[in-house]
C-alpha cells in the first residue's frame, strides 16, 4: 500500500469506500449546464440552416427585411442592438459608478446608505414590461419635447445636426437607450459597490496615512483596485442590454430603416425576434433563427472582449492588490 505522505490528497482516497457522491453531483450539474447550452446552439443552428445556405455572410450586411419577397438582412437591427446597448452603457456606467462610490464611502450615515442600496436593487426587480409601460407614459413625451427642441437648435451643426436630426419621434433610439440605461443601472451599481467595499481597508488607511485627500484616494487607489469588479459589472450590464426584448420593443419604434439620428425609430435583434416569430413561416423562421444565432455570437464576442479587458486590468492592478 502506498505511503499516505506521498499521495496528493493525503491518502484520503484510499480510506473512502463509496464513490464521492458530492463530486459526481457537481460534475453532473456543470456538465448539464454546458450540455443545455450546446443543445440550444445546435438546435438554433440547425433551424437556421436554410437561411445560412441562402444568404451566407451577406445576411449581416443586408439592409432589407421583406418577408413576403423572401429578402432578409439584419444590418439595421444589428446596428440598432449595438448602438442602443452602447449608449445605455455610456449613460449607466458613470452614473452607476458614482452611486457605488457614494454608497461605499461614508458620505452618508449608514441607515441612509442602506435605504439607497435597497432602492437601487429594487430597480432590478421591476419587470421589463413595466419599464416599457413607464417609458411609454413618461419618457416618450420628454424625449419628444427634447427632440423637437434639438432638431431646431442643432440644425446645420456638423455632428450634432445628424445625431439629433430629422423628424423627432417619441418612439426612438434615444428613448429605448435611456430606459435601457435605467434597467442596467442596478447591476452596475450593485457589483461595483461590492468591488469597492472589498478593497482592503489597509489600502485606504495607507493612502490617507501618506497624506492623500479623500478624492485622491478614491480615484487613485480604490477605483484601480476595484477595476476588475467594475469591468465585470460592465460586461454583465452590456449583456443584459443587448438581450433586453420587451421594454425595447415597446419603445424603439420597430423600424427596419437605418438612420444616423438618435431621434429616429430603430430596431434591435431581440425585438425583431419577439415581434415576428409568432406569425413566421418557412424561410422567415430560418432567417429569424439566423438572427438569433447572430445575437448569441454578438453576446459571446462581448463576453470574450470583456474577459480580455478583465485579465488585462487584473494584471495591471496586481501590484496594488
Amino acid at each position, binding site marked *: 500500500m502506498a505511503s499516505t505522505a506521498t499521495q496528493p490528497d493525503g491518502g484520503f482516497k484510499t480510506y473512502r469506500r463509496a464513490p464521492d457522491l458530492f463530486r459526481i453531483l457537481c460534475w453532473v450539474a456543470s456538465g448539464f449546464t454546458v450540455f443545455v447550452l450546446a443543445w440550444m446552439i445546435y438546435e438554433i443552428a440547425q433551424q437556421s440552416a436554410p437561411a445560412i445556405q441562402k444568404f451566407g455572410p451577406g445576411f449581416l450586411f443586408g439592409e432589407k427585411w421583406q418577408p413576403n419577397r423572401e429578402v432578409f438582412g439584419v444590418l439595421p437591427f444589428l446596428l440598432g442592438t449595438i448602438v442602443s446597448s452602447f449608449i445605455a452603457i455610456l449613460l449607466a456606467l458613470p452614473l452607476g459608478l458614482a452611486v457605488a462610490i457614494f454608497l461605499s464611502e461614508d458620505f452618508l450615515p449608514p441607515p441612509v446608505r442602506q435605504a439607497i442600496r435597497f432602492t437601487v436593487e429594487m430597480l432590478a426587480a421591476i419587470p421589463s414590461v413595466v419599464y416599457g409601460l413607464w417609458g*411609454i407614459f413618461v419618457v416618450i*413625451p420628454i424625449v419628444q419635447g427634447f427632440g423637437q427642441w434639438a432638431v431646431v437648435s442643432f440644425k446645420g451643426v456638423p455632428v450634432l445636426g445628424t445625431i439629433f436630426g430629422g423628424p423627432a419621434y417619441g*418612439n426612438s433610439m434615444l428613448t429605448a437607450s435611456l430606459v435601457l440605461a435605467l434597467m442596467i443601472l442596478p447591476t452596475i451599481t450593485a457589483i461595483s459597490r461590492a468591488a469597492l467595499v472589498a478593497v482592503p481597508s489597509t489600502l485606504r488607511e495607507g493612502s490617507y496615512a501618506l497624506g492623500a485627500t479623500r478624492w485622491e484616494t478614491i480615484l487613485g487607489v480604490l477605483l484601480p483596485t476595484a477595476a476588475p469588479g467594475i469591468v465585470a459589472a460592465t460586461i454583465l450590464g452590456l449583456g443584459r442590454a443587448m438581450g433586453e426584448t420587451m421594454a425595447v*420593443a415597446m419603445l424603439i419604434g420597430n423600424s*427596419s430603416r437605418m438612420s444616423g439620428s438618435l431621434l429616429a425609430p430603430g430596431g434591435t435583434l431581440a425585438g425583431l425576434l*419577439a*415581434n415576428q416569430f*409568432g*406569425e413566421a413561416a418557412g424561410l422567415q423562421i430560418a432567417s429569424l433563427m439566423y438572427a438569433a444565432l447572430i445575437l448569441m455570437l454578438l453576446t459571446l464576442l462581448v463576453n470574450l472582449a470583456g474577459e480580455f479587458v478583465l485579465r488585462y486590468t487584473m494584471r495591471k492592478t496586481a501590484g496594488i492588490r
Partner: protein
Amino acid sequence: MTIRSLATFGTLAASVLLGASAMAQQLSGAGASFPAPLYQRWAVEYNKANPSVQVNYQSVGSGAGIKQFTAGTVDFGASDAAMTDEEISKVSKGVVMLPATAGSIVIAYNLPGVKELKLSRDAYVGIFLGKITSWDDEIIKKDNPGVTLPSLPINVAYRSDGSGTTFVFTKHLSTISKEFADELGTDKSVDWPAGVGGKGNEGVTALIKQAPGTVGYVEYGYAANNGLAMASLQNKAGEFVAPNEASGAATLASVELPENLRIWPADPEGKADYPIVTFTWLLLFKDYDDAKADTLKAFVKWSLTDGQKLSAELGYIPLPEAVVTKTLAALDTVK
C-alpha cells in the same frame, strides 16, 4: 385528524373532482387575436347555456394558431388569413374553414380639432407609401374643404408583429394600387417605408393616441372602444364611406362565397360599401376521433346563429343570412 381519515377524505375529494371534470367537456382552440374578444365572449355565454361545455380559446396569432391546429394540439384553430392550399395539404385529418365573424379595418388618426376626415384612394395609399408627408398636403386638402388641416408631419403607425390585420390591409392596398403592390406587396408583415411599429392592435392604438399627427390602421373594435377618430375612405364607386356596422354589412351582403368559403372582398364595388372588410375563419378538422365532434359542432352552430347577436356589441359585423346558410352546410360535413 389521523392519517387514515385524511387519506380517505383525499381519495373521496379526488374522485368527486375527477368525476365532475369527466362530465365537463373541454374544447380548446387557438389562433387570431382579432376575433379573440368575441370568441371568448361566446365561450362564456355558451357555458352559461350549457354548463357542461367549457371552451378555451387562446389568442396567439393566426400563424401560431395554424401551426397548433396542423400539429393537432388544439380542437379548432382560428385565422384571419384562412389557410392556403399548401397549408391545408399538410393537415392529414382534412380541414373545414368556416367564416365565423367579420370586421372592418379602419384608418384611425390623431388630429386635435379635426373630427371628420375624408381620405381618397390616392391620399391613403400615398400616406402609407410615405409619399405624402404632411397633413396639409393638397391631395388631402382637396377632399376636406371645410376642415382646417394643421401643417403637422404625418407619422405613420403600423404593426411591428406579423398580423392578419396587416395581411388584409396590404391586400386591399395592393389591389387598388399597382405601385403599392410592386413596392410592398401583401403579407402578414411588410417593410413599411415610413413610420413606427407597435405590437398588436393595442400597440398601434397607443401610438396613435400618443402623438398628434399620427395615423395608423387598426380593427374597428379597438378604434371604437378607445375613442379614436376614424377616417372616411373612398371606395371603388367613388363615395366616401365611414366605418360602421351598416357600411360593413353592406360590403358583406354583396360577397359571393366560393366552394371552400375562402374569400377576401379586397375592393368591393357597391356605393355604400366600406372598402376594407375581412372575414375571419374557424378551422375545424373534417374528421374527429372522439365524441368531441358533436359538442364542437353544437358550439359552432350556436355561434353562427345566436352568437351573431353579440357581434355588434363588441365591434364586429354579424354575418349575413346567405353566408350563415352556406357555413352551416359546410359545418355539417364535419364528422
